[in-house]
């Protein structure tokens, strides 16, 4: 599998994305970075150039503003017409309780984690399909494998993303475009600062190495670390009759 030489990255400032693009930078990849924070993007751009990236451009976007999303993608395609990599890593983990009463919050979670990603994927997938090449990497979550009372709003948005990606993979496989779904377990990042860190927590660099390997090996769907596949297999197979009575 070829490594992308020009990569569009959404959520470039996330801990998981940064650790990952560091690895690609070493290979001389060029990047188009997106997040809400211009200063941070500038800082990342300088850092990646020192690490070996060939060229780094960036633009701000807000996942809640669909125009800013499409503008960023379109600008990237103008700057990098031979774009061959897409990495979607932005995401938002809400307070589930708030989402149970606030319709606005609930919809925002779905828009940030799913609608914006589906928008990006639609434009870039068509572009890659036409060119007959490209690698798409998107960070979903094992939380999307089954709805749980503690986290089902975020979970359903990620679940929708997983389903979208799986359909896209099937559609694009004939066009020579690979679609990789990443499902990280508990990762020690700003998203989880308030969590008590148990033994299942790993650093973002562990996830990054897994993503890098998945790209090289042309994987389809990876749980990181791999043992999450087994944990989720068990969780998915508990009959609904029993599942509804446990607090997970």
């Amino acid at each position, binding site marked *: 599998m070829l490594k992308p030489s020009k990569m569009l990255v959404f959520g470039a400032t996330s801990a998981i994305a940064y650790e990952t693009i560091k690895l690609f930078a*070493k290979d001389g990849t060029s990047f188009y970075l997106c997040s809400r924070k211009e*200063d*941070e993007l500038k*800082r*990342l751009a*300088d*850092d990646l*150039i*020192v*690490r*070996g990236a060939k060229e780094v451009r960036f633009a701000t976007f807000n996942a809640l503003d669909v125009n800013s999303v499409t503008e960023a993608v379109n600008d990237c395609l103008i700057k990098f017409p031979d774009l061959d990599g897409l990495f979607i890593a932005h995401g938002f983990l809400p307070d589930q309780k708030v989402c149970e009463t606030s319709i606005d919050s609930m919809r925002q979670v779905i828009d940030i984690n799913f609608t914006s990603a589906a928008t990006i994927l639609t434009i870039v997938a068509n572009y890659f399909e036409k060119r007959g090449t490209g690698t798409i990497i998107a960070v979903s979550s094992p939380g999307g494998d089954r709805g749980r009372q503690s986290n089902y709003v975020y979970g359903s948005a990620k679940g929708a993303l997983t389903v979208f990606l799986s359909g896209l993979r099937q559609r694009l496989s004939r066009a020579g475009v690979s679609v990789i779904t990443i499902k990280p377990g508990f990762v020690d990042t700003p998203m989880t600062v308030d969590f008590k860190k148990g033994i299942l927590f790993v650093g973002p660099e562990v996830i990054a190495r897994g993503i890098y390997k998945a790209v090289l090996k042309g994987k389809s769907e990876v749980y990181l670390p791999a043992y999450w596949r087994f944990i989720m297999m068990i969780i998915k197979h508990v009959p609904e009759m029993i599942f509804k009575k446990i607090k997970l």
Partner: protein
Amino acid sequence: MQNDLTLESWGRFPAALHSGEIVPRSIDEVRNSMRSVDASLLPRGMGRSYGDSCLNDGGYLLSTKRLDKFMHFAPDTGVLRCESGVTLDEILRVFVPQGWFLPVTPGTKYVTIGGAIANDIHGKNHHREGTFSNHVIRFELERSDGTRFLCSRDENRDWFRATVGGIGLTGVILWAELKLRPIAGPYIEMESIKFDSLDEFFQISHSSGGLFEYTVSWLDCLSSNDVRGLFMRGNHIDKEEKAELKITHKTSQWKTFPCDAPSYLLSTPSIKLFNFIYYNKQLNKIKKSIVHYDPFFYPLDSINHWNRMYGKSGFLQWQCAVPVNDNYEAIRLILRKIHKSGLGSFLVVFKEFGNHPSEGMLSFPMSGITLAMDFPNREKKIFSFLDRLDEVVVDVRGRIYPAKDARMSRNTFRASFPSVNEFTSYIDPKFSSSFYRRVGG
């Protein structure tokens, strides 16, 4: 703010209880971070200092762990600009494959640029290259009142001199610019030579200085007459192909030291045995090998948390530098005292410093000999013993290294660093450390 109150120094002694740790996420956040606390503050890198110079009992630590970005690199000159929390490990990872190496490195790569400047650290090439800060071109310092100083040899020179070796007390170093050195590959051509007396050590040291960039020795003071040890010397290999021939060591992370060691592991007989094996492991007088830079510079880094080997009560390091214009009398006296005390030390590291002048008001390296060793913190008598060693050092206008200290007296500190009076006026009023309250203040 994170409330990990139990942060330790590498020696795990003394204990400190912090009010909290603030972690600014970028250089621009440092200002608000400093404002957000109303008690005393101390910058904190990787916490690889041994004693209490990276501790601020009762106050706050300002961690640079997220000031971890590179800013610029000029491949034509080797000048790297990076944020102060970037570690030497990260620099090596990125730059060795590109053919660059650190100008000076300590015995661990897990230290930050900020920490390296604040202790003006030295390495095995001091006799050739001087201290770390000798290769720092400039840096930016931010004070708690929000003022920033660009510091170099031309600009704000006094702040440069105060902050180099300034043990974190003059403000927060935000970023720095340093000059890397070119290398042909990651391998070191090294020799290790057995010696049986101090005179032999000096003879090898003097003949090695011009030929070898890196020199360091390991000493055994527990053998009965005189000293014995191994003299290690090395150079970067100029040709990569040569290295393919016989690489004796590959880089590897062995393991994490699992738990606090029981104290019998460190009794004098077991140290004697360790030293005996270490010395006799090498049968020939001279052993030549080609090794990766990792085991050559950072043998201890291959065991995570090796400091746990000394158990819960931690350990003490003692490192001095003494001038040698007295025909090595002071160093002989120190070695005799160590031998007589019977207080063993796993690692006695011995090296001849060069004449390169250190630039910081409180820089430790000086022309002469440096000797470092560690002791498990088990017996009270170690403290009085080290006080007696301090006296010998101070008598000949030598110095004790703050980065490794948990116990020197106020007088020893003042005698070690006569420029402390000048230094005091550069201390940030909001900054303090356990160390400085103990020895300065």
